């Protein structure tokens, strides 16, 4: 049947070719690229693939994922802000580092000006793990070891300036220890690094979950406000004496200057996507819950986050040197 219908399709194709000039079609008329600034296979990547797949049903065009990892999740959005047309065919996941990194160093983008914010989607559950073969049974073991061997404790993060990096440094300064950060590109890489004991610890979002479930990694803590129902025995940051909560909420955005109609269309499709039970189930695998914010609320939220991040960065002494 496949080959038999080819001629028919060819005839139809020529027909379509002739009639295509009849009228401009409405957005979207071709596949949409969604940049995920993390390597393929991590928790963000898989969550975004599920969301994109559901959104594509509402948009009537495929939403393809383009993994542009690096720079703690900023390489992708920065590339988009610099090079993509605001036609709605290139959008990106915007992790919190997009707002934080400009406070820490020279960057090529301005979070206040260079993006069209579309919709806020969800947030992460972060945690710190170590290999099951490691001598560290609890966070206290890590602190004790680090006190005797300053700088010897290495931890893998999905990039410099990520919440994981900032959070670990905050903990280190409160505990009076020195840790060494090794920036990877994302979850798939940090998993391999800690499994192979190339770094002693891994600080990352829930991409480690299948490995923790299988007993190959040991989860030392989670960074949520309450214990995760999936890991009832694992303490939170607060319980360990660090009064902090990190969830790095994220959404999607496009390059600046997008047509509000296109933004609205994307907003609606992605809003429906995070209401899709199949998507919610996929997110739940990684301890993520939908956290919907409309286009307007998302814009306000970005301004708030930037302010609160500025304070944290200043206290840690990681702020950009102004000279």
């Amino acid at each position, binding site marked *: 049947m496949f080959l038999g219908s080819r001629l028919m*399709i060819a005839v139809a*194709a*020529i027909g379509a*070719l002739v009639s*295509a*000039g009849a009228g401009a079609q409405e957005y979207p*008329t071709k*596949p949409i690229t969604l940049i995920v600034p993390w390597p393929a296979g991590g928790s963000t990547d898989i969550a975004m693939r599920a969301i994109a797949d559901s959104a594509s049903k509402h948009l009537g065009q*495929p939403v393809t994922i383009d993994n542009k990892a690096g720079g703690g999740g900023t390489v992708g959005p920065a590339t988009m802000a610099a090079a993509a047309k605001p036609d709605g065919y290139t959008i990106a996941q915007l992790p919190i580092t997009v707002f934080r990194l400009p406070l820490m160093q020279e960057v090529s983008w301005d979070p206040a000006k260079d993006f069209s914010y579309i919709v806020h989607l969800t947030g992460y559950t972060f945690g710190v793990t170590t290999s099951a073969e490691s001598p560290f049974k609890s966070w206290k073991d890590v602190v004790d070891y680090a006190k005797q061997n300053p700088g010897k404790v290495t931890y893998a993060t999905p990039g410099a300036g990520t919440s994981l990096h900032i959070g670990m440094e905050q903990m280190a300064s409160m505990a009076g220890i020195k840790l060494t950060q090794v920036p990877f590109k994302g979850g798939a890489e940090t998993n391999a690094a800690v499994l192979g004991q190339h770094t002693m610890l891994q600080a990352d979002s829930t991409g480690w979950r299948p490995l923790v479930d299988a007993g190959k990694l040991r989860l030392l803590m989670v960074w949520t406000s309450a214990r995760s129902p999936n890991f009832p025995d694992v303490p939170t940051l607060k319980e360990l004496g660090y009064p902090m909560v990190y969830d790095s909420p994220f959404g999607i955005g496009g390059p600046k200057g997008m047509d509000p109609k296109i933004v609205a269309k994307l907003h609606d499709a992605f809003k429906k996507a995070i209401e899709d039970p199949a998507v919610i189930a996929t997110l739940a695998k990684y301890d993520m819950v939908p956290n919907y914010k409309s286009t307007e609320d998302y814009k306000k939220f970005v301004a708030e986050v930037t302010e609160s991040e500025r304070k944290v960065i200043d206290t840690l002494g990681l702020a950009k040197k102004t000279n």
Partner: protein
Amino acid sequence: MNGQTKAPSKLNNSELWGGLIGLALGVFVIWSGLKLKLGTINDPGSGYVLFYTGILMCVFAATIIAAAITEGGPTFASRWQDARWTKPLLVILCLIAFSFALEPLGFLLSAIPLMVLLLRAIDPVRWSLTIPLAVLTPLGVWWVLKRLLLIQLPSGIFEIG
């Protein structure tokens, strides 16, 4: 490269110039590396690997230059002997014209003239073959991509394709 005439004068030696271009690139890479900051060995910066790669480039380029000076090499003229250099130039010009026309005119309207040009300009193919080939192959590519693989090619301002 056997049987090519040795350079009568050193400046005509194509090997020498290849090496010099390599050396210039190497120096540029070193400079770019320095500008991007080397960082420290505990935490290498963005320019660290560029800087050392640049040094290696200079070393290899210097080897090539040394060999060119001591052993000589084929001249530019000998490398282009019997070559119709206008033909590659023509192909490149066609490609550049195509790439500028692609988005405004759309894939089909730019690919069909490109095919006609290429088929006729280098070693002319007879018209009775040129026309069907130039029309059917872009149409076929367009169809396979759009219908089988769901890849959309630019349709241009006339919305054709």
